[in-house]
Protein backbone atom coordinates (compact mmCIF):
# COMPACT_ATOMS: atom_id res chain seq x y z
CA UNK A 1 0.00 0.00 0.00
CA UNK A 2 1.10 3.57 -0.66
CA UNK A 3 -0.49 6.83 0.37
CA UNK A 4 -2.12 8.90 -2.35
CA UNK A 5 0.64 11.48 -2.18
CA UNK A 6 3.34 8.82 -2.69
CA UNK A 7 1.83 7.54 -5.91
CA UNK A 8 3.65 8.75 -9.03
CA UNK A 9 2.38 9.13 -12.60
CA UNK A 10 2.94 5.88 -14.46
CA UNK A 11 2.23 3.72 -11.42
CA UNK A 12 -0.79 1.45 -11.32
CA UNK A 13 -3.36 1.28 -8.54
CA UNK A 14 -6.13 -1.25 -8.05
CA UNK A 15 -9.69 0.04 -7.74
CA UNK A 16 -12.56 -2.40 -7.29
CA UNK A 17 -10.40 -5.15 -8.75
CA UNK A 18 -9.32 -3.27 -11.87
CA UNK A 19 -5.86 -1.85 -12.61
CA UNK A 20 -5.77 1.90 -13.23
CA UNK A 21 -2.71 3.70 -14.46
CA UNK A 22 -2.08 7.06 -12.81
CA UNK A 23 -1.59 9.59 -15.58
CA UNK A 24 -1.45 12.68 -13.36
CA UNK A 25 -1.34 13.20 -9.61
CA UNK A 26 -1.83 16.79 -8.43
CA UNK A 27 -1.48 17.86 -4.83
CA UNK A 28 -3.60 20.64 -3.33
CA UNK A 29 -3.64 22.03 0.18
CA UNK A 30 -7.07 22.33 1.74
CA UNK A 31 -7.79 24.05 5.07
CA UNK A 32 -5.81 23.55 8.25
CA UNK A 33 -3.36 20.72 7.64
CA UNK A 34 -5.37 18.61 5.23
CA UNK A 35 -4.28 17.98 1.67
CA UNK A 36 -5.93 16.47 -1.37
CA UNK A 37 -4.61 14.53 -4.32
CA UNK A 38 -6.44 14.78 -7.61
CA UNK A 39 -5.59 11.93 -9.95
CA UNK A 40 -6.22 11.36 -13.62
CA UNK A 41 -6.57 7.63 -14.12
CA UNK A 42 -6.79 5.31 -17.10
CA UNK A 43 -8.18 1.82 -16.86
CA UNK A 44 -5.52 -0.45 -18.32
CA UNK A 45 -7.99 -3.07 -19.42
CA UNK A 46 -10.63 -1.00 -21.21
CA UNK A 47 -8.95 2.38 -21.73
CA UNK A 48 -11.64 4.28 -19.79
CA UNK A 49 -10.38 7.51 -18.24
CA UNK A 50 -11.57 9.17 -15.06
CA UNK A 51 -10.60 11.74 -12.46
CA UNK A 52 -10.62 11.06 -8.74
CA UNK A 53 -9.73 12.75 -5.48
CA UNK A 54 -8.16 11.27 -2.38
CA UNK A 55 -7.07 12.55 0.98
CA UNK A 56 -3.29 12.66 0.74
CA UNK A 57 -2.93 9.95 3.38
CA UNK A 58 -5.56 7.60 1.91
CA UNK A 59 -3.92 4.22 1.43
CA UNK A 60 -4.06 2.84 -2.10
CA UNK A 61 -3.23 -0.63 -3.34
CA UNK A 62 -0.60 -0.31 -6.04
CA UNK A 63 1.04 -3.01 -8.08
CA UNK A 64 4.68 -3.36 -9.10
CA UNK A 65 4.92 -4.01 -12.79
CA UNK A 66 7.51 -5.66 -14.98
CA UNK A 67 9.85 -3.30 -16.83
CA UNK A 68 12.07 -3.80 -19.87
CA UNK A 69 14.75 -1.65 -21.48
CA UNK A 70 13.66 -0.44 -24.91
CA UNK A 71 14.73 2.08 -27.54
CA UNK A 72 12.51 3.97 -29.92
CA UNK A 73 12.48 2.65 -33.47
CA UNK A 74 9.79 4.26 -35.65
CA UNK A 75 6.22 5.54 -35.84
CA UNK A 76 3.69 3.37 -37.69
CA UNK A 77 0.52 5.40 -37.45
CA UNK A 78 -1.16 5.13 -34.95
CA UNK A 79 1.44 3.11 -33.02
CA UNK A 80 4.88 4.01 -31.73
CA UNK A 81 7.26 1.10 -32.15
CA UNK A 82 10.06 0.39 -29.68
CA UNK A 83 12.63 -2.43 -29.69
CA UNK A 84 13.83 -4.34 -26.66
CA UNK A 85 17.32 -5.72 -26.04
CA UNK A 86 16.39 -8.93 -27.86
CA UNK A 87 15.19 -6.96 -30.90
CA UNK A 88 11.56 -7.79 -30.20
CA UNK A 89 9.25 -5.05 -31.44
CA UNK A 90 6.86 -3.47 -28.94
CA UNK A 91 3.96 -1.31 -30.09
CA UNK A 92 2.59 1.44 -27.88
CA UNK A 93 -0.44 3.69 -28.27
CA UNK A 94 -0.05 7.45 -28.29
CA UNK A 95 -2.18 7.83 -25.12
CA UNK A 96 0.22 5.65 -23.19
CA UNK A 97 3.09 7.94 -24.07
CA UNK A 98 1.35 11.09 -22.89
CA UNK A 99 4.08 12.18 -20.49
CA UNK A 100 6.99 11.56 -22.88
CA UNK A 101 5.50 12.12 -26.30
CA UNK A 102 7.04 15.57 -26.60
CA UNK A 103 10.53 14.07 -26.47
CA UNK A 104 10.01 11.22 -28.93
CA UNK A 105 11.82 11.89 -32.19
CA UNK A 106 13.35 9.88 -35.00
CA UNK A 107 16.88 8.76 -34.34
CA UNK A 108 16.71 9.15 -30.56
CA UNK A 109 19.05 6.76 -28.76
CA UNK A 110 17.81 7.10 -25.18
CA UNK A 111 17.40 3.83 -23.32
CA UNK A 112 13.83 3.88 -22.03
CA UNK A 113 11.88 1.65 -19.63
CA UNK A 114 8.73 0.01 -20.99
CA UNK A 115 6.26 -0.87 -18.25
CA UNK A 116 4.09 -3.99 -18.70
CA UNK A 117 0.78 -5.08 -17.23
CA UNK A 118 0.69 -8.73 -18.24
CA UNK A 119 1.71 -8.61 -21.90
CA UNK A 120 0.44 -5.10 -22.51
CA UNK A 121 2.80 -2.12 -22.45
CA UNK A 122 1.14 0.62 -20.47
CA UNK A 123 3.82 3.29 -20.45
CA UNK A 124 7.35 4.20 -21.37
CA UNK A 125 9.64 6.13 -19.08
CA UNK A 126 12.50 8.18 -20.48
CA UNK A 127 15.77 8.68 -18.58
CA UNK A 128 15.54 11.61 -16.16
CA UNK A 129 17.90 13.68 -18.30
CA UNK A 130 17.94 13.61 -22.08
CA UNK A 131 19.73 15.61 -24.76
CA UNK A 132 17.94 17.14 -27.73
CA UNK A 133 18.95 19.46 -30.55
CA UNK A 134 17.33 22.85 -31.04
CA UNK A 135 15.62 22.98 -34.44
CA UNK A 136 14.67 26.63 -34.24
CA UNK A 137 15.01 29.60 -31.93
CA UNK A 138 15.21 33.36 -32.39
CA UNK A 139 18.74 34.78 -32.56
CA UNK A 140 20.42 35.45 -29.21
CA UNK A 141 20.27 38.86 -27.56
CA UNK A 142 23.68 40.47 -27.82
CA UNK A 143 25.88 40.50 -24.80
CA UNK A 144 23.75 38.39 -22.49
CA UNK A 145 25.57 35.27 -21.39
CA UNK A 146 24.13 35.07 -17.88
CA UNK A 147 21.57 32.42 -18.76
CA UNK A 148 18.97 34.19 -16.63
CA UNK A 149 17.05 35.54 -19.59
CA UNK A 150 15.13 32.87 -21.47
CA UNK A 151 13.48 32.47 -24.85
CA UNK A 152 11.46 29.82 -26.64
CA UNK A 153 13.20 27.05 -28.56
CA UNK A 154 11.61 24.39 -30.77
CA UNK A 155 12.81 20.79 -30.97
CA UNK A 156 12.81 18.65 -34.12
CA UNK A 157 9.37 17.20 -33.28
CA UNK A 158 7.83 20.63 -32.74
CA UNK A 159 7.87 20.66 -28.94
CA UNK A 160 8.69 24.08 -27.51
CA UNK A 161 10.37 24.97 -24.23
CA UNK A 162 12.14 27.86 -22.54
CA UNK A 163 15.93 27.87 -22.91
CA UNK A 164 18.70 30.31 -22.02
CA UNK A 165 18.84 33.23 -24.38
CA UNK A 166 22.36 32.38 -25.55
CA UNK A 167 21.23 29.06 -27.11
CA UNK A 168 21.34 28.87 -30.91
CA UNK A 169 19.83 26.76 -33.66
CA UNK A 170 21.71 23.43 -33.78
CA UNK A 171 22.80 23.58 -30.13
CA UNK A 172 22.30 20.49 -27.99
CA UNK A 173 20.53 20.99 -24.67
CA UNK A 174 19.90 18.84 -21.63
CA UNK A 175 16.27 18.53 -20.51
CA UNK A 176 14.85 17.22 -17.23
CA UNK A 177 12.04 14.91 -18.36
CA UNK A 178 10.31 14.99 -14.97
CA UNK A 179 9.90 18.75 -14.86
CA UNK A 180 10.11 19.35 -18.60
CA UNK A 181 12.63 22.10 -17.98
CA UNK A 182 15.79 23.02 -19.84
CA UNK A 183 18.86 22.35 -17.68
CA UNK A 184 21.93 23.40 -19.68
CA UNK A 185 23.59 23.63 -23.07
CA UNK A 186 25.82 20.63 -23.77
CA UNK A 187 28.64 19.98 -26.21
CA UNK A 188 28.47 17.11 -28.68
Amino acid sequence: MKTAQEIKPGQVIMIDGSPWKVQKNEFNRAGRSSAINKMKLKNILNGMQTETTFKCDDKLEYIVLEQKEVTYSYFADPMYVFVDTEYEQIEIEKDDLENVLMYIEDGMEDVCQAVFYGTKVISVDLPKNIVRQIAYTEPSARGDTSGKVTKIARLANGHELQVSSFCEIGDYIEIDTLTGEYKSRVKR
Partner: protein
Amino acid sequence: MTSRWIIFCSIIDNFGDIGVCWRLARQLVDEHRRDVELWVDDWSALSGFLAAQIPAINNSPVFPEQQAMTAAGVCIRHWHNPWQALPVTDQQIAGADVIIEAFGCELPASVKEAMSTANSPVLWLNLEYLSAEAWVKECHGLPSPQNLSPLVKKFFFFPGFEQGTGGLLREATLTSQHEQWQQEQQVLRQRLLHNAGLLEFLQADVLLVSLFSYDTPALASWLNALQAQTQEVVCFVPEGKSLAAVARCFARDRLVPGEIARVGALTVVAMPFGSQTDYDQLLSLCDFNVVRGEDSFVRAQWAARPMLWHIYPQADGVHLQKLEAFERLYLDGLNPDAAKAWHAFSNGWNLGEDCHEVWHHLRPQLSSLQSHARKWQKKLAAMPDLSANLVNFETLTKLSAHP
Protein backbone atom coordinates in the same frame (compact mmCIF):
# COMPACT_ATOMS: atom_id res chain seq x y z
CA MET B 1 -39.23 7.31 3.21
CA THR B 2 -37.07 10.09 4.67
CA SER B 3 -33.45 9.56 3.90
CA ARG B 4 -31.10 9.22 6.85
CA TRP B 5 -28.01 11.41 7.01
CA ILE B 6 -25.13 11.08 9.45
CA ILE B 7 -22.60 13.86 10.00
CA PHE B 8 -19.31 13.25 11.79
CA CYS B 9 -17.82 16.38 13.31
CA SER B 10 -14.48 16.65 15.06
CA ILE B 11 -14.17 19.86 17.08
CA ILE B 12 -10.67 21.22 16.58
CA ASP B 13 -10.72 24.89 17.38
CA ASN B 14 -13.39 26.91 19.13
CA PHE B 15 -16.91 26.54 17.77
CA GLY B 16 -16.28 26.93 14.04
CA ASP B 17 -16.52 23.25 13.08
CA ILE B 18 -19.54 22.52 15.23
CA GLY B 19 -21.10 25.83 14.16
CA VAL B 20 -21.05 24.77 10.50
CA CYS B 21 -22.15 21.19 11.22
CA TRP B 22 -24.99 22.34 13.45
CA ARG B 23 -26.26 24.79 10.83
CA LEU B 24 -26.06 22.10 8.16
CA ALA B 25 -27.82 19.51 10.34
CA ARG B 26 -30.61 21.93 11.20
CA GLN B 27 -31.09 23.00 7.62
CA LEU B 28 -31.28 19.39 6.43
CA VAL B 29 -33.97 18.77 9.03
CA ASP B 30 -35.92 22.03 8.70
CA GLU B 31 -35.75 22.66 4.98
CA HIS B 32 -35.09 19.28 3.41
CA ARG B 33 -36.91 16.97 5.83
CA ARG B 34 -33.91 14.73 6.30
CA ASP B 35 -33.47 12.50 9.32
CA VAL B 36 -30.12 13.72 10.72
CA GLU B 37 -27.72 12.27 13.27
CA LEU B 38 -24.76 14.44 14.30
CA TRP B 39 -21.79 12.68 15.91
CA VAL B 40 -19.52 15.05 17.84
CA ASP B 41 -16.25 14.12 19.52
CA ASP B 42 -15.93 16.92 22.08
CA TRP B 43 -19.00 16.58 24.25
CA SER B 44 -18.06 19.35 26.66
CA ALA B 45 -17.43 21.90 23.89
CA LEU B 46 -20.70 20.78 22.33
CA SER B 47 -22.61 21.35 25.56
CA GLY B 48 -21.24 24.91 25.78
CA PHE B 49 -22.17 25.53 22.17
CA LEU B 50 -25.66 24.10 22.46
CA ALA B 51 -26.37 25.92 25.69
CA ALA B 52 -25.95 29.17 23.75
CA GLN B 53 -28.19 27.98 20.91
CA ILE B 54 -30.96 26.40 22.99
CA PRO B 55 -30.93 27.88 26.52
CA ALA B 56 -33.30 25.19 27.87
CA ILE B 57 -30.54 22.61 27.34
CA ASN B 58 -28.46 24.36 29.99
CA ASN B 59 -30.94 23.31 32.64
CA SER B 60 -31.19 19.74 31.51
CA PRO B 61 -30.12 17.48 34.40
CA VAL B 62 -28.76 14.80 32.08
CA PHE B 63 -26.68 16.91 29.75
CA PRO B 64 -23.74 16.51 29.16
CA GLU B 65 -23.35 13.08 30.75
CA GLN B 66 -25.76 11.37 28.42
CA GLN B 67 -24.51 9.85 25.19
CA ALA B 68 -27.29 11.00 22.91
CA MET B 69 -29.93 13.66 22.81
CA THR B 70 -32.26 15.32 20.38
CA ALA B 71 -32.25 19.08 19.91
CA ALA B 72 -34.11 21.07 17.27
CA GLY B 73 -34.94 17.82 15.49
CA VAL B 74 -31.29 16.75 15.23
CA CYS B 75 -30.18 13.59 17.01
CA ILE B 76 -26.81 14.39 18.59
CA ARG B 77 -24.52 11.55 19.61
CA HIS B 78 -21.22 11.33 21.40
CA TRP B 79 -18.32 10.28 19.16
CA HIS B 80 -15.98 8.72 21.69
CA ASN B 81 -12.31 8.94 20.91
CA PRO B 82 -11.08 6.23 20.63
CA TRP B 83 -14.21 4.91 19.01
CA GLN B 84 -16.00 2.35 21.16
CA ALA B 85 -16.79 -0.15 18.43
CA LEU B 86 -20.19 -1.66 18.95
CA PRO B 87 -21.25 -3.76 15.96
CA VAL B 88 -24.84 -2.63 16.38
CA THR B 89 -23.86 1.03 16.26
CA ASP B 90 -21.47 0.51 13.35
CA GLN B 91 -24.11 -1.35 11.38
CA GLN B 92 -26.68 1.28 12.17
CA ILE B 93 -24.34 4.02 10.88
CA ALA B 94 -23.42 1.96 7.81
CA GLY B 95 -27.12 1.66 7.01
CA ALA B 96 -27.48 5.43 6.51
CA ASP B 97 -28.21 6.89 3.09
CA VAL B 98 -25.57 9.60 3.40
CA ILE B 99 -22.51 9.78 5.65
CA ILE B 100 -20.58 13.04 5.85
CA GLU B 101 -17.05 13.45 7.14
CA ALA B 102 -17.07 17.15 7.95
CA PHE B 103 -13.86 19.04 7.24
CA GLY B 104 -12.09 15.88 6.19
CA CYS B 105 -12.33 14.16 9.57
CA GLU B 106 -11.71 10.42 9.50
CA LEU B 107 -14.50 7.87 9.99
CA PRO B 108 -13.82 5.24 12.68
CA ALA B 109 -12.23 2.10 11.17
CA SER B 110 -14.99 -0.21 12.41
CA VAL B 111 -17.62 2.00 10.76
CA LYS B 112 -15.79 1.66 7.45
CA GLU B 113 -15.62 -2.06 7.97
CA ALA B 114 -19.37 -2.16 8.55
CA MET B 115 -19.84 -0.09 5.39
CA SER B 116 -17.98 -2.75 3.41
CA THR B 117 -20.84 -5.16 4.11
CA ALA B 118 -23.61 -2.61 3.52
CA ASN B 119 -26.59 -4.07 1.72
CA SER B 120 -27.99 -0.78 0.50
CA PRO B 121 -26.30 2.13 -1.30
CA VAL B 122 -24.34 4.53 0.90
CA LEU B 123 -23.28 7.96 -0.29
CA TRP B 124 -20.12 8.88 1.61
CA LEU B 125 -19.14 12.55 1.34
CA ASN B 126 -15.96 14.22 2.41
CA LEU B 127 -17.15 17.76 3.06
CA GLU B 128 -14.06 19.88 2.71
CA TYR B 129 -12.93 23.30 3.88
CA LEU B 130 -14.08 26.41 2.07
CA SER B 131 -11.67 27.89 -0.44
CA ALA B 132 -11.93 30.27 -3.38
CA GLU B 133 -9.01 28.68 -5.22
CA ALA B 134 -9.54 27.62 -8.82
CA TRP B 135 -8.65 23.95 -8.19
CA VAL B 136 -11.72 23.61 -5.93
CA LYS B 137 -14.05 23.68 -8.94
CA GLU B 138 -11.96 20.98 -10.60
CA CYS B 139 -12.11 18.68 -7.56
CA HIS B 140 -15.68 19.32 -6.43
CA GLY B 141 -17.91 16.27 -6.82
CA LEU B 142 -15.15 13.92 -7.98
CA PRO B 143 -15.31 10.30 -6.84
CA SER B 144 -12.87 8.92 -4.31
CA PRO B 145 -12.96 5.13 -4.74
CA GLN B 146 -12.29 3.32 -1.49
CA ASN B 147 -12.47 -0.37 -2.45
CA LEU B 148 -15.03 -1.00 0.29
CA SER B 149 -18.06 -2.20 -1.61
CA PRO B 150 -19.71 -1.40 -4.96
CA LEU B 151 -22.61 -0.03 -2.91
CA VAL B 152 -20.45 2.54 -1.12
CA LYS B 153 -19.67 5.59 -3.24
CA LYS B 154 -17.41 8.25 -1.84
CA PHE B 155 -17.10 11.77 -3.25
CA PHE B 156 -15.36 15.01 -2.33
CA PHE B 157 -17.70 17.93 -1.80
CA PHE B 158 -16.27 21.44 -1.74
CA PRO B 159 -18.08 24.52 -0.50
CA GLY B 160 -17.31 27.55 -2.63
CA PHE B 161 -18.24 30.96 -3.95
CA GLU B 162 -18.82 30.10 -7.59
CA GLN B 163 -21.01 27.96 -9.80
CA GLY B 164 -19.47 24.52 -10.06
CA THR B 165 -18.73 24.33 -6.34
CA GLY B 166 -20.90 23.15 -3.45
CA GLY B 167 -21.90 26.73 -2.54
CA LEU B 168 -22.27 28.22 0.94
CA LEU B 169 -24.64 27.41 3.79
CA ARG B 170 -27.60 29.80 3.68
CA GLU B 171 -30.90 29.22 5.40
CA ALA B 172 -33.94 30.01 3.25
CA THR B 173 -34.88 33.07 5.31
CA LEU B 174 -31.37 34.39 6.00
CA THR B 175 -31.09 37.21 3.48
CA SER B 176 -34.61 38.47 4.16
CA GLN B 177 -33.84 38.36 7.87
CA HIS B 178 -30.80 40.57 7.31
CA GLU B 179 -32.88 42.91 5.17
CA GLN B 180 -35.40 43.23 7.98
CA TRP B 181 -32.74 43.82 10.64
CA GLN B 182 -31.16 46.50 8.49
CA GLN B 183 -34.49 48.20 7.86
CA GLU B 184 -34.97 48.38 11.63
CA GLN B 185 -31.32 49.07 12.31
CA GLN B 186 -31.80 52.39 14.09
CA VAL B 187 -33.97 50.81 16.78
CA LEU B 188 -31.93 47.62 16.93
CA ARG B 189 -28.60 49.43 17.21
CA GLN B 190 -29.99 51.50 20.05
CA ARG B 191 -31.16 48.33 21.75
CA LEU B 192 -27.71 46.79 21.30
CA LEU B 193 -26.05 49.83 22.89
CA HIS B 194 -28.67 49.99 25.62
CA ASN B 195 -28.17 46.31 26.50
CA ALA B 196 -24.42 46.91 26.68
CA GLY B 197 -25.06 49.79 29.12
CA LEU B 198 -23.79 52.43 26.69
CA LEU B 199 -26.63 54.89 27.11
CA GLU B 200 -24.44 57.87 26.26
CA PHE B 201 -24.12 56.66 22.68
CA LEU B 202 -27.82 56.18 22.00
CA GLN B 203 -28.17 59.40 20.04
CA ALA B 204 -24.56 59.69 18.88
CA ASP B 205 -23.09 59.12 15.45
CA VAL B 206 -21.08 56.15 16.53
CA LEU B 207 -19.23 53.60 14.41
CA LEU B 208 -20.13 50.05 15.41
CA VAL B 209 -17.63 47.29 14.72
CA SER B 210 -17.41 43.65 15.73
CA LEU B 211 -14.19 41.75 16.27
CA PHE B 212 -13.85 37.97 16.10
CA SER B 213 -10.32 37.20 14.95
CA TYR B 214 -7.30 35.11 15.86
CA ASP B 215 -4.55 36.71 17.90
CA THR B 216 -2.30 38.90 15.76
CA PRO B 217 0.07 41.82 16.32
CA ALA B 218 -2.08 43.77 13.86
CA LEU B 219 -4.90 43.87 16.40
CA ALA B 220 -3.17 46.26 18.80
CA SER B 221 -2.34 48.69 16.00
CA TRP B 222 -5.94 48.67 14.77
CA LEU B 223 -7.28 49.34 18.27
CA ASN B 224 -4.77 52.21 18.51
CA ALA B 225 -6.10 53.61 15.27
CA LEU B 226 -9.68 53.36 16.55
CA GLN B 227 -8.75 55.19 19.77
CA ALA B 228 -7.30 58.05 17.75
CA GLN B 229 -10.40 58.57 15.58
CA THR B 230 -12.56 61.64 15.92
CA GLN B 231 -15.72 59.57 15.57
CA GLU B 232 -16.62 57.43 18.59
CA VAL B 233 -16.27 53.68 18.00
CA VAL B 234 -17.93 50.84 19.85
CA CYS B 235 -16.23 47.51 19.28
CA PHE B 236 -18.14 44.34 20.24
CA VAL B 237 -15.84 41.45 21.01
CA PRO B 238 -17.42 38.02 21.48
CA GLU B 239 -15.72 35.65 23.91
CA GLY B 240 -12.71 33.94 22.36
CA LYS B 241 -9.08 34.45 21.41
CA SER B 242 -9.55 38.03 20.28
CA LEU B 243 -11.04 39.02 23.63
CA ALA B 244 -7.88 37.89 25.43
CA ALA B 245 -5.79 39.82 22.91
CA VAL B 246 -7.94 42.92 23.34
CA ALA B 247 -7.53 42.71 27.12
CA ARG B 248 -3.76 42.79 26.65
CA CYS B 249 -4.07 45.93 24.54
CA PHE B 250 -5.83 47.57 27.47
CA ALA B 251 -3.11 46.30 29.82
CA ARG B 252 -5.68 44.10 31.54
CA ASP B 253 -5.25 40.47 32.55
CA ARG B 254 -8.56 39.66 30.99
CA LEU B 255 -11.91 41.05 30.00
CA VAL B 256 -14.97 39.16 31.12
CA PRO B 257 -18.22 39.14 29.18
CA GLY B 258 -20.28 42.18 30.07
CA GLU B 259 -17.22 44.26 30.87
CA ILE B 260 -16.50 47.53 29.09
CA ALA B 261 -13.09 49.10 28.45
CA ARG B 262 -12.50 52.60 27.11
CA VAL B 263 -9.56 54.51 25.68
CA GLY B 264 -9.89 57.68 23.60
CA ALA B 265 -12.64 57.31 21.03
CA LEU B 266 -12.77 53.55 21.50
CA THR B 267 -15.17 51.63 23.72
CA VAL B 268 -14.80 47.87 23.81
CA VAL B 269 -17.69 45.67 24.90
CA ALA B 270 -16.84 42.11 25.90
CA MET B 271 -19.72 39.85 24.90
CA PRO B 272 -20.63 36.37 26.11
CA PHE B 273 -20.66 33.55 23.56
CA GLY B 274 -24.15 33.88 22.16
CA SER B 275 -26.47 32.09 19.80
CA GLN B 276 -25.83 31.92 16.08
CA THR B 277 -28.85 34.12 15.50
CA ASP B 278 -27.58 36.78 17.92
CA TYR B 279 -24.24 36.77 16.13
CA ASP B 280 -25.94 37.09 12.74
CA GLN B 281 -27.81 40.10 14.07
CA LEU B 282 -24.62 41.67 15.45
CA LEU B 283 -22.96 41.28 12.03
CA SER B 284 -26.01 42.82 10.41
CA LEU B 285 -25.98 45.89 12.68
CA CYS B 286 -22.25 46.69 12.67
CA ASP B 287 -20.63 49.02 10.17
CA PHE B 288 -17.56 46.81 9.91
CA ASN B 289 -16.93 43.23 10.96
CA VAL B 290 -13.67 41.44 11.56
CA VAL B 291 -14.29 37.72 11.14
CA ARG B 292 -12.17 34.62 10.94
CA GLY B 293 -11.92 30.99 9.86
CA GLU B 294 -14.95 29.74 7.99
CA ASP B 295 -18.24 30.05 9.86
CA SER B 296 -18.14 33.72 10.89
CA PHE B 297 -16.49 34.52 7.55
CA VAL B 298 -19.45 33.14 5.62
CA ARG B 299 -22.01 34.70 7.96
CA ALA B 300 -20.40 38.13 7.53
CA GLN B 301 -20.87 37.88 3.77
CA TRP B 302 -24.56 37.13 4.20
CA ALA B 303 -24.81 40.15 6.53
CA ALA B 304 -23.80 42.34 3.56
CA ARG B 305 -21.59 44.63 5.61
CA PRO B 306 -17.96 45.65 5.01
CA MET B 307 -15.71 43.04 6.54
CA LEU B 308 -12.19 41.83 7.01
CA TRP B 309 -11.31 38.13 6.88
CA HIS B 310 -8.64 36.89 9.26
CA ILE B 311 -7.84 33.62 7.54
CA TYR B 312 -6.71 30.58 9.57
CA PRO B 313 -2.91 30.83 9.45
CA GLN B 314 -1.10 27.79 8.05
CA ALA B 315 2.57 27.10 8.76
CA ASP B 316 3.88 27.31 5.20
CA GLY B 317 1.94 30.42 4.24
CA VAL B 318 -0.46 28.49 2.00
CA HIS B 319 -3.32 30.47 3.56
CA LEU B 320 -2.09 33.59 1.77
CA GLN B 321 -2.82 31.95 -1.59
CA LYS B 322 -6.32 31.19 -0.33
CA LEU B 323 -6.73 34.78 0.82
CA GLU B 324 -5.57 36.05 -2.55
CA ALA B 325 -7.99 33.72 -4.34
CA PHE B 326 -10.89 35.05 -2.29
CA GLU B 327 -9.77 38.63 -2.80
CA ARG B 328 -9.73 38.12 -6.56
CA LEU B 329 -13.41 37.18 -6.47
CA TYR B 330 -14.54 39.52 -3.72
CA LEU B 331 -12.97 42.71 -5.02
CA ASP B 332 -14.19 42.22 -8.58
CA GLY B 333 -16.33 45.22 -9.49
CA LEU B 334 -15.31 47.35 -6.50
CA ASN B 335 -13.96 50.83 -7.33
CA PRO B 336 -10.14 50.81 -7.51
CA ASP B 337 -9.57 53.14 -4.52
CA ALA B 338 -11.74 51.09 -2.20
CA ALA B 339 -10.26 47.85 -3.52
CA LYS B 340 -6.75 49.13 -2.93
CA ALA B 341 -7.59 50.24 0.61
CA TRP B 342 -9.31 46.93 1.42
CA HIS B 343 -6.39 44.93 0.03
CA ALA B 344 -3.87 46.94 2.06
CA PHE B 345 -5.82 46.48 5.29
CA SER B 346 -6.51 42.78 4.68
CA ASN B 347 -2.90 42.11 3.76
CA GLY B 348 -1.56 44.06 6.72
CA TRP B 349 -3.87 42.28 9.14
CA ASN B 350 -3.16 38.80 7.83
CA LEU B 351 0.59 39.40 7.75
CA GLY B 352 0.49 40.75 11.31
CA GLU B 353 1.71 44.20 10.30
CA ASP B 354 0.91 47.62 11.72
CA CYS B 355 -2.62 48.47 10.57
CA HIS B 356 -2.90 52.00 11.98
CA GLU B 357 -2.25 53.82 8.73
CA VAL B 358 -4.10 51.41 6.45
CA TRP B 359 -7.23 51.65 8.62
CA HIS B 360 -7.27 55.41 8.09
CA HIS B 361 -7.15 54.78 4.35
CA LEU B 362 -9.93 52.21 4.58
CA ARG B 363 -12.35 54.26 6.70
CA PRO B 364 -13.32 56.77 4.01
CA GLN B 365 -14.10 53.81 1.74
CA LEU B 366 -16.64 52.20 4.10
CA SER B 367 -19.64 53.47 2.17
CA SER B 368 -18.29 52.08 -1.13
CA LEU B 369 -17.53 48.83 0.65
CA GLN B 370 -21.05 48.81 2.06
CA SER B 371 -22.73 48.95 -1.34
CA HIS B 372 -20.24 46.43 -2.69
CA ALA B 373 -20.98 44.03 0.19
CA ARG B 374 -24.66 44.17 -0.73
CA LYS B 375 -23.93 43.38 -4.38
CA TRP B 376 -21.63 40.52 -3.31
CA GLN B 377 -24.34 39.09 -1.06
CA LYS B 378 -26.86 39.22 -3.92
CA LYS B 379 -24.40 37.51 -6.26
CA LEU B 380 -23.84 34.69 -3.78
CA ALA B 381 -27.54 34.39 -3.02
CA ALA B 382 -28.30 33.83 -6.71
CA MET B 383 -26.66 30.39 -6.40
CA PRO B 384 -28.12 27.36 -4.65
CA ASP B 385 -26.86 26.95 -1.11
CA LEU B 386 -24.69 24.15 0.25
CA SER B 387 -27.48 22.11 1.84
CA ALA B 388 -29.59 22.21 -1.35
CA ASN B 389 -26.53 21.20 -3.39
CA LEU B 390 -25.88 18.29 -1.04
CA VAL B 391 -29.47 17.10 -1.32
CA ASN B 392 -29.33 17.43 -5.12
CA PHE B 393 -26.10 15.48 -5.13
CA GLU B 394 -27.78 12.69 -3.19
CA THR B 395 -30.63 12.61 -5.72
CA LEU B 396 -28.32 12.61 -8.73
CA THR B 397 -26.14 9.87 -7.26
CA LYS B 398 -29.19 7.72 -6.64
CA LEU B 399 -30.42 8.33 -10.19
CA SER B 400 -27.08 7.41 -11.70
CA ALA B 401 -26.96 4.23 -9.63
CA HIS B 402 -30.46 3.22 -10.82
CA PRO B 403 -30.87 4.54 -14.36
